[in-house]
C-alpha cells in the first residue's frame, strides 16, 4: 500500500449491527433505528463514507461570476477555494498551502488572479499552479520543482445548471450519473430562465445543535410536519387555509437517495399557475423545459426536495406576512455537518437573473420572512431538530426505532405520473425519507479502499450539462495556465 492509498476506517461491531438492522428494518418494517442521529461514531464514519464519496454542493456559478472571483466552501472538514480562473474555468483547490499547510484564503470571498500565502509567501495562480516562492534562489538554489507543488485540486468537480458540486472520491461516477433521473426535477426548479439563476448576496450561515440528516429528512419528503410545525403560518394566512395543505402533492424519489415533493393548492383554494412567476420567465420556461416538466410545474405551488446528501431545495409560493399576497421564491440550503449533534446551515436565496425587479424584491422579502435564520417557518423547524438531536443522545434513546410507516398499506405508486422515479400520488408519505436513509445506510456499510490517485476513467471536465467549464485536476504535476 502506498502512502497515497489507505483503507477507510472500520465500523465497530455495534454500528455495523445497527446499520444492517436498519437496512433490514427500513425495507421490511419501514422503521429506522434512532441510533444514527446523535452518535460520535456515526459522525466519524459518515464524513468518510457519505461525504467522502458523494457529490456535495459547493457553490453556485453566479457566486463566482467573473474571472478571479472565489468563495471558500466545505465538504465535511475540508475547505476548498472555489474559484473561476482567468480562463473562465471553475476550479476548487484545497485551501491549504503546500509548504506548511496554511490557509491560503482567510477571507470567505474575494477576487484575485493569484493567491499569496500569508505564512511564507508561496504564491499560486488561480488555476492552482505554484508560480513563486520567496527567496527561491537563496533558500532553494532556484531548484524547487514548483510543478510538483501546485495547490491540491478537488478530485472531481462538475456543474449542473449552474450548481457547482465537488466529490472527494476520484472513482465516483460522474455528477450527471449521480444526479441521474433527479435532473428532470432539478430542471423544473433551476432551469426556467434563459439567463439562469443567481444567488443574491451571500448565504446566511448559522449554527443549529442538530444532526444534519434532520434537515435533509425534512426537505426530502416531510410534507406531514407542516400541519403541526407550521400551523402558526396557516393561522396567519401565510400558507393556504387548510392545515393539511401539504398533503395535496406528488411524492417522488430517484436513485442515490434524492427526493422531491411537488404540492398544489388544496381543493377549492385557487392559486395562480406556475406559482405566479413573471410572464417572461413563464415564456422562457415553456420553451426550455419538456412538456411534461411544464405540466408538472403548472398547477403546483410548493416544491421541496433534497439532493443527497445535504443540499435541500425549497421553492414555495407563500406570503411574506399576514397582509400580503403570496409570492414564489427559491432557496437552496446546505446542512453542513460539524459534529454528531451540530450543523451549520447555509441558506441561499436565488432568483432568475432576468426576472423583473418587483419579483426579485418580493421574493427576497418573502424568503427572508419565512425561511432563513429569522424566517417564521424555519424558526420552528430548527427548534424541533435541536430537540430531537438532544433527546436522542441518550444511551437508552439510541436503542429505539423511529416510525417511517406513513403510506404503508395505503399508498401505491402513481402509474400516471409523467416524470421519472418512484412517485406516490400524495405527499403525506415517507417513501422519500426511507429512500434517503436506505441509500445513506448502504453507503455507510460499504467497505472499500479509498485512494487519492486519479481515476483511470478520468472524467471529462464538461461531462455534465453545466453552463460553465469546470476542471478537476487529479494530479498535481499537470501544468495549469490560468
Amino acid at each position, binding site marked *: 500500500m502506498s502512502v497515497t492509498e489507505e483503507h477507510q476506517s472500520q465500523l465497530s461491531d455495534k454500528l455495523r449491527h445497527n446499520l444492517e438492522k436498519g437496512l433490514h428494518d427500513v425495507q421490511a418494517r419501514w422503521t429506522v433505528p434512532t441510533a444514527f442521529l446523535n452518535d460520535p461514531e456515526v459522525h466519524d464514519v459518515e464524513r468518510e463514507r457519505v461525504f467522502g464519496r458523494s457529490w456535495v454542493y459547493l457553490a453556485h456559478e453566479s457566486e463566482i461570476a467573473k474571472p478571479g472571483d472565489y468563495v471558500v466552501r466545505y465538504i465535511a472538514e475540508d475547505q476548498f477555494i472555489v474559484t473561476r480562473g482567468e480562463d473562465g474555468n471553475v476550479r476548487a483547490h484545497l485551501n491549504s498551502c503546500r509548504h506548511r499547510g496554511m490557509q491560503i484564503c482567510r477571507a470567505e470571498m474575494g477576487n484575485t488572479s493569484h493567491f499569496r500565502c500569508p505564512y511564507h509567501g508561496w504564491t499560486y495562480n488561480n488555476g492552482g499552479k505554484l508560480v513563486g516562492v520567496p527567496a527561491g534562489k537563496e533558500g532553494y538554489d532556484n531548484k524547487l520543482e514548483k510543478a510538483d507543488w501546485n495547490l491540491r485540486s478537488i478530485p472531481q468537480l462538475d456543474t449542473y445548471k449552474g450548481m457547482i458540486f465537488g466529490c472527494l472520491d476520484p472513482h465516483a461516477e460522474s455528477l450527471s450519473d449521480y444526479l441521474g433521473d433527479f435532473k428532470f426535477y432539478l430542471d423544473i426548479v433551476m432551469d426556467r430562465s434563459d439567463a439562469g439563476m443567481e444567488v443574491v448576496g*451571500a448565504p*446566511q450561515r448559522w449554527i443549529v445543535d442538530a444532526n444534519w440528516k434532520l434537515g435533509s429528512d425534512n426537505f426530502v419528503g416531510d410534507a406531514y410536519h407542516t400541519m403541526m410545525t407550521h400551523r402558526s403560518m396557516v393561522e396567519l394566512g401565510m400558507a393556504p387555509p387548510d392545515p393539511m395543505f401539504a398533503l395535496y402533492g406528488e411524492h417522488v424519489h430517484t436513485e442515490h437517495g434524492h427526493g422531491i415533493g411537488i404540492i398544489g393548492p388544496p381543493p377549492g383554494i385557487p392559486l395562480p399557475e406556475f406559482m405566479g412567476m413573471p410572464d417572461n420567465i413563464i415564456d422562457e420556461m415553456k420553451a426550455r423545459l419538456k412538456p411534461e416538466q411544464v405540466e408538472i410545474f403548472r398547477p403546483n405551488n410548493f416544491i421541496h426536495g433534497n439532493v443527497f446528501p445535504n443540499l435541500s431545495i425549497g421553492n414555495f409560493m407563500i406570503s411574506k406576512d399576514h*397582509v400580503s399576497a403570496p409570492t414564489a421564491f427559491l432557496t437552496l440550503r446546505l446542512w453542513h455537518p460539524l459534529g454528531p449533534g451540530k450543523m451549520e446551515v447555509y441558506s441561499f436565496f436565488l432568483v432568475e437573473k432576468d426576472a423583473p425587479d418587483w419579483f426579485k424584491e418580493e421574493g*427576497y422579502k418573502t424568503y427572508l*420572512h419565512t425561511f432563513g435564520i429569522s424566517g417564521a417557518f424555519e424558526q420552528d423547524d430548527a427548534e424541533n431538530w435541536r430537540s430531537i438531536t438532544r433527546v436522542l443522545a441518550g444511551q437508552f434513546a439510541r436503542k429505539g426505532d423511529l416510525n417511517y410507516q406513513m403510506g404503508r398499506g395505503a399508498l401505491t405508486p402513481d402509474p400516471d405520473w409523467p416524470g421519472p422515479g418512484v412517485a406516490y400520488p400524495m405527499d403525506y408519505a415517507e417513501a422519500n425519507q426511507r429512500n434517503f436513509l436506505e441509500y445513506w445506510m448502504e453507503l455507510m456499510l460499504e467497505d472499500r479502499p479509498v485512494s487519492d490517485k486519479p481515476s483511470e476513467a478520468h472524467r471529462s471536465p464538461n461531462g455534465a450539462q453545466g453552463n460553465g467549464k469546470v476542471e478537476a485536476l487529479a494530479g498535481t504535476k499537470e501544468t495549469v495556465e490560468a
Partner: protein
Amino acid sequence: MTIEAQTPQTQVVDTAVREITEWLFAEAALLDAGKYREWLDLMAQDLHYVVPLRVTREREAETDIIEGMTLMDDDWDTMEMRVLRLETEYAWAEDPPSRSRHFVTNVRVVGGDKDDEFKVASNLLLYRTRGDVPTYDILSGERHDVLRRVDDGFHMVQRVVVLDQTTIMTHNFALIM
C-alpha cells in the same frame, strides 16, 4: 438604513440623552419579559428593522456587510406578523419561551435628520437559554436606531443591528434584538 460613526464632539448632551437611555432600557425590559405587543406599540408605522449579513473580508475591503441580502429586513407589518405568530398556540420556537436578557450599553446620541428625531447608537449583548440545555447563546452587536419624539416618549423608526458574527451562534432569530 444609515450607519454613521459618532464622535464625542457631535453628541447631544442634554436631558434627551437621559430620556433616550431610559427608553432603551425600558424597551429591553419589555422584550425580556415577552411583552411583544407592548413592544410593538413603541414602533413607528414606518419602522425599518434590519440585521445586516456580514462576511469575513480583508481589512482593506470597503465593507464586510453584504449588499442585497440580510439576516432580517422587517417593516411594521412583518413585525406585527412576528408578534401575531408568537400569540398563536403553535409558535414552537418560543414556546416554551427562551430566557433572554438584553444588556444595553455605550449609548451615544446625536441629532437626527429631522428635528424630532435622534440617532442612537448602543451596544447590545443578548443572552439566551432554552429548556434545560446547560449551554447558552450570546449575540453581541452594535445597534443603530433612529428614535422619533412623540407625545408619550419615543417611537422607533429604524434599528440596524450589526452583529459581531458571520456564522450566527444561535439556531434562530425568534427573539427581537
